[in-house]
């Protein structure tokens, strides 16, 4: 049964609402919860998820809708009451805070006249309006919002470049300026590596691997996933590369991206060749042109960090499949000695989009075709980016609310066709408090159910640092205690998964037969 409550003229941001929904969903007897502002897009979401009600339909963009689907009236009423109590508290706190908070960028600038950066995460339709105003006031912009029209992105980047400003994003998840982390970020040291990144998790991975190697970041400039498209033409990527080339604190530059549009590639290579600083390029899925004098092109995020470290220390560098091949051989033997799983499919269940993409690229040479975000009933080798809009309809990103991944993991482990599960656990400021815990719990539960039949091995990597709020060692231990094989990086985890199911892959990667 569905229960609805509408608060008139009460705005809450999407993170607060999604966290509320996630909390209420865990209550007994509750199946699903939507806590959304009544925008047209959110009404569509309600309809899609079967939570549309007559009362919710009366909510306008400034009204907050709470819709619960529960077993019975009692469950629904208790959960609704909890939701109401939470929102009442927010409303009081908000009224107090807003009495003193400025209501516009200009009012904020009166309070902080020498501000040099605007961080913007308003809904995408309003992003151009706010970001344009910030640029015109001379502020750099970090634009977290997604669903920003391409034409708006282009206009914003052109405006920024006319003013010599950074326009980071839209859909910029992570950046670092002068040691300050923006958006969702890992706590890494300040240092001498400058990054330009079209991918949030890609940047997080390189920053964390560099931290493990003892190196830190000068600046890391996010440009948004579409910057190297034909339409945007790499405007901000090229400008950011040039800015880092001029930056005294930056000794080596790293570019992290998906493959650039072929029309943009020559301009990118020309810029890279002119930087006069060592540059490492990780455009996942691009086969580098060895002859081009445009830096060191690498195939994985881990290699980007390793090649950067080598450049900083004047060392030669060659990629290798595992940091500790002997340990991996031992681990592989242990996995094989356990009850073998009957399945044949590798199933990748990722919260980080770039990590999913990277894993697929590494699996395919060993396993053959690997489907990406296939329909729910698909079998065979497959990789799911569970942060993709297809899976997050009306919910927080799985890095914040891991439920969608936990459910997918339980399904994959209950499926006799699964030979191995590959996954990521992403730590950092803004991520879930203990992202390894639900993975560990799901694996234990699946093992208990499987009993003597045995369980397909689960292979993971943890992206984070010891300084992150969740702690790298703590999260790694949670996974290992549950019997998850934890490899040092996503690339190594993907190769290990391939080696488990495919003797030829093991032979190629480890010299095993």
């Amino acid at each position, binding site marked *: 049964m569905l229960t609805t409550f509408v608060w008139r003229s009460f705005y809450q*941001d999407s993170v607060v609402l999604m966290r509320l929904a996630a909390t209420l969903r865990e209550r007994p007897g509750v199946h699903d919860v939507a806590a959304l502002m009544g925008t047209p897009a959110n009404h569509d979401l309600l309809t899609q998820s079967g939570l549309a009600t007559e009362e919710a339909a009366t909510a306008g*963009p*400034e009204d907050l809708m709470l819709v619960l689907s529960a077993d019975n009236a009692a469950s629904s009423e208790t959960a609704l009451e909890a939701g109401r109590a939470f929102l009442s508290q927010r409303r009081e706190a908000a009224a107090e805070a807003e009495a003193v908070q400025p209501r516009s960028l200009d009012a904020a600038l009166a309070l902080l006249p020498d*501000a040099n950066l605007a*961080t913007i995460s308003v809904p995408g339709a309003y992003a151009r309006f706010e970001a344009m105003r910030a640029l015109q006031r001379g502020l750099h912009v970090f634009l977290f919002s997604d669903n920003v029209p391409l034409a708006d992105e282009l206009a914003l980047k052109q405006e920024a*470049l006319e003013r010599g400003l950074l326009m980071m994003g839209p859909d910029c998840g992570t950046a670092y300026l002068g040691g300050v982390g923006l958006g969702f970020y890992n706590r890494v040291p300040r240092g001498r590596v400058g990054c330009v990144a079209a991918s949030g998790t890609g940047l997080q991975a390189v920053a964390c691997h560099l931290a493990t190697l003892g190196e830190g970041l000068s600046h890391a400039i996010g440009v948004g996933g579409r910057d190297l498209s034909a339409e945007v033409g790499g405007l901000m990527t090229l400008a950011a590369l040039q800015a880092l080339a001029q930056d005294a604190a930056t000794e080596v530059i790293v570019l992290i991206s998906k493959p650039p549009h072929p029309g943009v590639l020559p301009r990118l290579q020309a810029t890279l060749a002119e930087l006069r600083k060592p540059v490492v390029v990780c455009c996942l899925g691009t086969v580098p042109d060895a002859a081009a004098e445009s830096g060191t092109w690498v195939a994985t995020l881990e290699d980007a960090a390793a090649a950067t470290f080598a450049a900083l220390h004047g060392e030669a560098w060659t990629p290798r499949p595992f940091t500790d091949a002997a340990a991996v051989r031992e681990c592989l033997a242990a996995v094989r000695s356990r009850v073998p799983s009957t399945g044949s499919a590798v199933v990748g269940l990722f919260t980080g989009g770039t990590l999913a993409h990277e894993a697929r690229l590494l699996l395919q040479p060993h396993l053959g075709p690997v489907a990406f975000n296939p329909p729910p009933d698909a079998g065979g080798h497959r990789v799911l980016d569970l942060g993709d809009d297809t899976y997050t309809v009306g919910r927080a990103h799985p890095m914040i609310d891991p439920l969608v991944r936990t459910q997918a993991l339980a399904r994959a482990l209950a499926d006799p066709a699964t030979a191995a599960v590959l996954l990521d656990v992403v730590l950092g400021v803004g991520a879930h408090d203990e992202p390894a815990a639900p993975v560990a719990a799901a694996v234990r539960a699946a093992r208990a159910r499987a009993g003597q039949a045995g369980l397909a091995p689960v292979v993971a990597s943890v992206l984070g640092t010891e300084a992150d709020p969740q702690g790298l060692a703590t999260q790694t231990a949670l996974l290992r205690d549950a019997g998850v094989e934890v490899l040092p990086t996503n690339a190594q985890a993907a190769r290990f998964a391939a080696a488990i199911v495919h003797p030829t892959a093991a032979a190629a990667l480890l010299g095993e037969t």
Partner: protein
Amino acid sequence: MPTKPKAVQLPTTPLRVVNLGLELFADSLRAQEVPVVQVAWRPPAGGNQRLATLLGRMYGDRPPER
């Protein structure tokens, strides 16, 4: 390309930030000892997207009065 790009100057002074949107970003900046002012942001034009866009174009860089 209609623009004449100027070289981007990375910030040379410590960050001072205006945050519009998710408050958790303001919280995380404060935790890093960065001065930040949170804007009590509401959808402009009462959430009417079409009207907000039209107003944005009409006013150029000037915000519509709330």
